[in-house]
């Protein structure tokens, strides 16, 4: 930890706002939505009190928030926005647009259920339904990581090899509204780590550009290939940037993913966001009982850590995937991705999908303990459905 760091006791939303302030965006265009609201409130205060030199644009919708951010980025300036759930869905058109235009916009998304039914609480169905929009997606576990990823996010997004927009996901309420200790690096340190944005695809008075142009069947596919390449290259940049961040600020997050007690684990639970924390305590408890359990924290879902996942899977017996999401008629989206990655790595491992924590339902230690039990049962031949909901309040007749 650097001497210049300052300690604060703040919520996840506030940590995001503080991280954004350190990253010095030129323009913020955002529309309020629970549970993201505190982010835009704090940023408005920072702009008002002069601690952030930035234009705060009060847009009239999330669609406009993203469009304005693209306009900002089109001039080569640094843009930030934040949203959640319905707001993210309202932005969907712009998400594709921004990634195709290679605008390195950074966005915070407070993971929240999607209507109907109307529900303001946390799950990840919002951002997971946007996996194909061409944005880098990272899921963070605590307020410190949220703050740090705002800074890392710009660095990765603006890397010349990447130039791809970056979405940082925080579990709604459980992370956005929980207060905890956060270390803030100094502005000078962040300025050294994060240089000003330099990009070619911008409006330039000396060499005028046409942006978001029309390209037909003749070359569109190549543009998409280019986007895919950039996303694939992002993997290396993410690792490098995280390491450098670790060297400078003392916090390295594991790059694409973090393995906790996975080296020799027979039973690995793959999880994202705040659930990982609870899973760590459950793994500790199981380990003390002699169960060889581990948790794999998937940090990035785009790009997806295919290789790394394959390596951890090699020694495991059963892999469970926790999804706070369901792709109706199929399975959890993370499960689909994990299975695809494992199959590409030549793994024929048993995988199980545990769907729960929807609409803000708490995921308890007991839930996770039960999940590990089911994975053990599977290993001992007690076969179960590959996709199962957990923590149901009602009988399901299955």
């Amino acid at each position, binding site marked *: 930890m650097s001497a210049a760091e300052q300690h604060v006791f703040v919520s996840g939303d506030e940590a995001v706002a503080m991280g954004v302030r350190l990253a010095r965006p030129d323009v913020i265009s955002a529309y309020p939505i629970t549970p993201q609201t505190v982010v835009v409130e704090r940023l408005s205060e920072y702009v008002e009190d002069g601690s952030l030199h930035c234009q705060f644009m009060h847009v009239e919708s999330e669609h406009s928030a993203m469009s304005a951010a693209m306009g900002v980025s089109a001039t080569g300036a640094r843009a930030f926005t934040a949203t959640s759930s319905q707001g993210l869905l309202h932005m969907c058109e712009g998400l594709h647009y921004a990634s195709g235009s290679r605008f390195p916009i950074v966005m915070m998304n407070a993971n929240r259920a999607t209507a109907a039914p109307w529900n303001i609480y946390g799950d990840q169905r919002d951002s997971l339904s946007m996996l194909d929009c061409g944005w880098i997606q990272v899921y963070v576990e605590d307020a410190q990581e949220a703050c740090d990823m705002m800074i890392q996010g710009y660095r990765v997004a603006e890397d010349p090899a990447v130039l791809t927009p970056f979405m940082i996901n925080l579990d709604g309420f459980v992370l956005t509204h929980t207060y905890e200790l956060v270390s803030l690096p100094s502005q000078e340190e962040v300025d050294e780590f994060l240089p000003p944005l330099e990009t070619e695809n911008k409006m330039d*008075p000396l060499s005028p550009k046409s942006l978001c142009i029309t390209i037909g069947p003749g070359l569109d596919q190549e543009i998409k290939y280019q986007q895919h390449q950039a996303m694939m290259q992002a993997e290396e940049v993410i690792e490098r940037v995280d390491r450098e961040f670790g060297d400078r600020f003392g916090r390295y997050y594991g790059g694409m993913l973090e393995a906790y007690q996975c080296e020799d684990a027979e039973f690995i639970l793959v999880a994202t966001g705040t659930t990982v924390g609870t899973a760590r305590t459950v793994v500790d408890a199981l380990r003390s009982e002699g169960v060889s359990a581990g948790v794999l924290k998937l940090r990035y879902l785009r790009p997806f850590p295919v290789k790394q996942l394959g390596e951890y899977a090699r020694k495991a017996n059963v892999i469970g995937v926790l999804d706070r999401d369901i792709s109706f008629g199929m399975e959890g989206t993370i499960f689909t991705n994990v299975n695809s990655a494992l199959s590409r790595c030549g793994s024929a491992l048993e995988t199980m999908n545990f769907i729960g924590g929807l609409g803000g339902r708490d995921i308890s230690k007991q839930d996770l303990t039960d999940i590990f039990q089911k994975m053990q049962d599977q290993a001992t031949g007690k076969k179960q459905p590959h996709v199962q909901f957990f923590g149901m309040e009602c009988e399901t007749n299955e």
Partner: protein
Amino acid sequence: MSKNLSNKEYFYGHKACPGCGGSLAVRLALKALGDNTLTVLPANCMSAVSFIYPQMAFTGNAMISPFASTASMLSGVAAGAKARGMEDYHVIGFAGDGGTADIGLQALSGAIDRNDPVIYVCYDNEAYMNTGIQKSGLTPVGATTTTSPAGKNESGEIRPKKSMFEIVAAHNIEYAATCSVGYPRDYIKKIEKASRVKGATYIHVYAPCPTGWGHPTDQTIALAKEAVDCGLWYLAEYEKGDFKLNKRPKKFADVGGHLKKQARFRHLSDREIQDIEQHRDARWETMTSKWN
């Protein structure tokens, strides 16, 4: 001729239909603003005909926005240009009637409410032309379009145009004006005036579409002028809270004659034309009594 009009062409080699009123509106506005103009267009005819890789018809900086967000992308460009410390530039957007009065209305309202320093031009050709002549919120009564077809039971569009000019004025906008490509000097003057305003401005320019309206390509200017002369369109300004009519015809030119030059109105009966005249008279009654 406006003295300040640049002799440079900033919108050139585009693929708009011959005689396109919208493309003239874009061309003249950009000439009025000169070098270093940042342009935003949503998905519409003007963007569809000018960003066809590798043929780029805008010589200045320009970009296509999502359909609904011409105004918000304009706001973003204006904010970004300011942040980057650009100097001596204008930010202008060109959306059609559908892009303005329908899908883009919310974003436009937001930009005016924020008073962002942008010029928003609505080139009004009275239907969604890019997708093949579908009815928009600015399609006039009686016009047949592919989604308001005149037939045995209906006589084309049944609802009058939304009054975008007054909708915009109701935001207490810094400056708004209506124009017609049939009165190009008036249009240029108003664009120039908008460019001197420090906040949001709105220019609504009537721009015939030979393809969609069904008139010979050489009639574009004549029809745009005649629409004003027969009172179906008007030239006005809203400034500092006041409405001002720039042109009050002493006697309206013949409406029937005007409408019958366009295939989209050719089905109208004399009775229906009389209805249109009556509606026009009522509208002018209001405008002349309430506006300066």
